């Protein structure tokens, strides 16, 4: 009785009332609302002490209750009224979830009643814009029901299902479920539309044909989300998605093309798909859409090109389809600069396509280097963009004339400045471009002035092996061409120790680059003394048993130049470097031969080494090497043989003198 009273008084006066339960002040719209929602509202309030729950919350919960306890008629009415609410607000979504609304909606998908399913799906598809709800739908087994409904003959149902999958499959678990419940072949089947329908504008299509096009569009959207998982891409390929997507790409309907290109751009993560893009002739269509109005469409096209351009044939196809010009135009366009993902995609595409010389030719005509340098001017530019721009410059600067161009537009200071950033992929690219600059005398001066070599040197401290390797690799020309390079290197505090210590790395590529750098350093005798003190000789010998071709090449070179100081030559021999080096000569790689012969030449200045070499059977290799057309190799091999021969002659002479002495003693 007292409870009754407290109920009624709260209705009328809207004030907190004493009693066993806590009431929170809220606005009640009309008495019928509160009388129905009364019992549930108390439960809600105890669990969630919110300051203010709007009446909409209760109204929505009431509708869900009617859905639970009603027949099809009541359900359809409730669903339609539910749709009137703004389902994108958090409070309304909570209203539905708190009362088990998601379960009801998902259960409706199992019924046979088409109207109930359509209503439930429109609500679900709007709700699934929220990430947490996507998770709930997946956990409640929603995906398997959605997939089952994909094959329902009602086409408007199919469209809604695909749209819902597009939303829900943004989370990984849902994508996995789509694959497990065989949803992918069904979605791929829906992509199949008559080519004529795709090429006719929408106002000329019959309602039937229009619906078919809309189904294909919805399925493409669903696949766009689904293809975020690699395993799904493979299943898609097996289900025959490649030719179907290629067909959709040639449609005139923009709303079909956008999800298609989005899907293709994601599939292009798979190497087999990259090949398929090339062989199915999709490159031409993708290039065509680079001129589209929609920036996100252009972005996906550029991303696809970026991913596929690792292959030379594709690069040529892009050029032939006229793809290079729009890319540069977009890079020049100030509007693009605001759109970071687009800019990153465009610059990435320029980078990868510039790997081909013919493309660089065209880029030169378009004054691309200048355009790229302009992008560097923004100090706060997005780091991915910077990485791509630098990569592109690196490819362009492999051609000597571009080094001039870069210098003239004052690009070098920006590049040296980038050495101060911390983004590892960016730091991988910057030394490589400076390496190209260092080959040009005037550019090298500028780098020196800006203290660029020291900055590159400090990259050797970076954790990423790729960064270390690229830094070491770019030091080679820097040291070679710097003025007073020996002095410069000595000035780097702790620099020599640092680089020698890198010989302890486990990464073969890093080791190879470091050895190349050490070979350069060792050309200065004072520095050679210092690194010998740091123990470079035994560390080099440690590496001598490697099978890695690149490492062998540069290791032999390092050993060659390190022989010049003191007892290094002897030490190399004593530590057992000779025999493995001789084994290098059996390798088929001519670069390895060249550097190894050089090493052997320098090592043969020591008598003991000669003997060891001879015993290891080096002579036949050297004889073969003399017959080569590679001059350096020839010279080194000849020098080595000469030393061995000299020693042999000396040995013989000594032997003869001893014998003569012995015989004269005997005579006496």
């Amino acid at each position, binding site marked *: 009785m007292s409870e009754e009273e407290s109920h009624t008084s709260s209705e009328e006066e809207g004030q907190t009332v004493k009693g066993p339960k806590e009431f929170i002040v809220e606005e009640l719209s009309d008495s*019928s609302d509160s*009388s*129905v929602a009364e019992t549930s509202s108390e439960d809600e309030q105890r669990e969630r002490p919110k300051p203010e729950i709007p009446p909409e919350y209760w109204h929505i919960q*009431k*509708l869900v*209750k*009617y859905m639970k*306890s*009603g*027949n*099809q*008629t*009541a359900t*359809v*009415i*409730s*669903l*339609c*009224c539910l*749709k*009137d609410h703004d389902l994108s607000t958090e409070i309304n979504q909570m209203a539905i979830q708190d009362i088990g609304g998601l379960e009801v909606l998902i259960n409706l998908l199992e019924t046979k009643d*088409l*109207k109930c399913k*359509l*209503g439930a799906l429109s609500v679900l598809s709007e709700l699934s814009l929220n990430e947490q709800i996507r998770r709930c739908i997946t956990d409640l087994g929603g995906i398997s029901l959605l997939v089952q409904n994909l094959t329902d*003959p*009602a086409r408007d149902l199919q469209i809604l299902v695909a749209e819902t999958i597009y939303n829900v499959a943004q989370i990984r678990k849902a994508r996995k479920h789509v694959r497990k419940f065989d949803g992918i072949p069904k979605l791929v089947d829906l992509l199949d539309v008559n080519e004529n329908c795709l090429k006719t504008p929408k106002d000329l299509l019959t309602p039937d044909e229009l619906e078919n096009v809309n189904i294909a569009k919805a399925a493409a959207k669903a696949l766009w989300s689904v293809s975020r998982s690699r395993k799904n891409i493979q299943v898609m390929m097996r289900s025959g998605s490649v030719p179907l997507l290629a067909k959709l790409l040639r449609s005139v309907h923009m709303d079909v093309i956008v999800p298609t290109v989005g899907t293709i751009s994601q599939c292009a993560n798979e190497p087999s798909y990259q090949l398929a893009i090339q062989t199915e002739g999709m490159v031409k269509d993708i290039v065509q859409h680079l001129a589209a109005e929609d920036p996100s469409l252009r972005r996906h096209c550029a991303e696809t090109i970026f991913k596929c351009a690792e292959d030379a044939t594709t690069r040529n196809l892009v050029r032939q389809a006229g793809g290079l010009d729009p890319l540069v135009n977009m890079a020049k366009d100030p509007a693009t600069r605001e759109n970071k993902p687009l800019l990153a995609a465009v610059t990435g595409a320029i980078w990868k396509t510039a790997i081909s010389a013919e493309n660089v030719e065209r880029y030169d005509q378009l004054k691309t280097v200048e355009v790229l340098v302009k992008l560097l001017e923004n100090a706060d530019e997005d780091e991915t963009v910077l990485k791509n721009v630098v990569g592109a410059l690196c490819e362009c600067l492999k051609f000597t004339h571009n080094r001039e161009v870069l210098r003239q537009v004052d690009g070098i200071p920006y590049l040296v400045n980038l050495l101060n950033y911390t983004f590892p992929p960016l730091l991988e690219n910057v030394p490589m471009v400076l390496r190209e600059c260092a080959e040009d005398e005037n550019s090298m001066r500028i780098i020196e002035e800006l203290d660029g070599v020291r900055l590159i040197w400090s990259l050797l401290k970076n954790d990423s092996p790729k960064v270390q390797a690229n830094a070491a690799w770019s030091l080679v020309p820097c040291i070679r061409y710097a003025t007073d390079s020996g002095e410069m290197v000595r000035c780097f505090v702790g620099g020599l120790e640092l680089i020698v210590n890198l010989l302890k790395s486990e990464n073969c590529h890093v080791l190879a680059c470091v050895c190349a750098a050490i070979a350069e350093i060792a050309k200065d005798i004072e520095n050679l003394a210092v690194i010998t003190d740091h123990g470079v000789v035994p560390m080099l010998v440690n590496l001598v048993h490697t099978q890695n071709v690149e490492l062998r090449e540069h290791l032999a070179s390092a050993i060659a130049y390190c022989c010049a100081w003191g007892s290094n030559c002897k030490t190399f021999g004593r530590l057992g470097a000779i025999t493995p080096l001789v084994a290098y000569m059996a390798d088929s790689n001519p670069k390895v031969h060249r550097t190894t012969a050089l090493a052997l030449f320098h090592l043969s200045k020591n008598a003991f080494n000669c003997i060891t070499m001879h015993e290891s059977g080096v002579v036949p290799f050297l004889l073969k090497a003399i017959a080569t057309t590679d001059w350096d190799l020839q010279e080194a091999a000849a020098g080595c043989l000469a030393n061995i021969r000299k020693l042999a002659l000396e040995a013989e002479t000594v032997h003869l003198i001893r014998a003569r002495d012995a015989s004269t003693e005997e005579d006496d």
Partner: protein
Amino acid sequence: MAADLSNLSMRGGVLVMKSVSLFLAGTRNSKRSSAQPAAKAAKPRRKKMSEQDIAYRCSMKILEAAKRDTLFTRSEIEALYKIFRRLVTTNKTKSSQGKIKSNANTPSIIGKPTNIQEGIDRIVFREILHNTFDIVAENMLMDRIFCVWDKANYGLITLEAWLHGLSLFLRGSTIRQIEFCFSVYDLNADGFITKDEMFQLLKNCLIKHPQEEDPDESVKDLVDIVMRKMDKDKDGKVSLEDFQGTVVEEPLLLEAFGKCLPSERSKNTFLSTLKA
């Protein structure tokens, strides 16, 4: 007596439906085997049903009128005529006595003594709605559909009503269908759907909890919600314009107060049997 009669009619109705489907299947099969146009019955049947065969042919006048007023083709009209006659004949034989009586029972006959109306009665009609068109609804709704089909109020579905009604069911445009549903839901045919009428229609659509003080509370509330949604001109009742506006915005509300149109599947099935 009346109960016996209705029992007979019921069983008769079931038998009618079975025989109709058999009939349809039979004609279909015979078409396949003989590959003759729909107008002619198959050879083995011809011998048995020579009399009835003549009766099954549709008169030209009716054919022309139907082609003009409905959306059916000539062959479809003929097939529908056959079905109609079959349903009527079975009805008659099962309750030959009752025919005159059933005519007399329905109060709304405006006396046309010279024209003996023959047609499908309520019970058979209900069976058709249920079995052929998947319309499972409360009796009240089924009766409403019957009333709307039976515009002239004969208490039976005449051939004309049959053809018009099916034309709307199977091929009706959205506008016509909206009008049809509105007429079904407008219980007293005054051109408005009021709250009371909505309550009548939705009375049984929610499960009643025994411990609820007022079990009709939620239905009344639901009625309020629907009224708020549909009453566009805010005059407290739903006119045809209000209803049309609502359905155009939200097509799912076409059959908001109960199923009164056939499902897509049953439509297709029925149309394909006509084609055979």
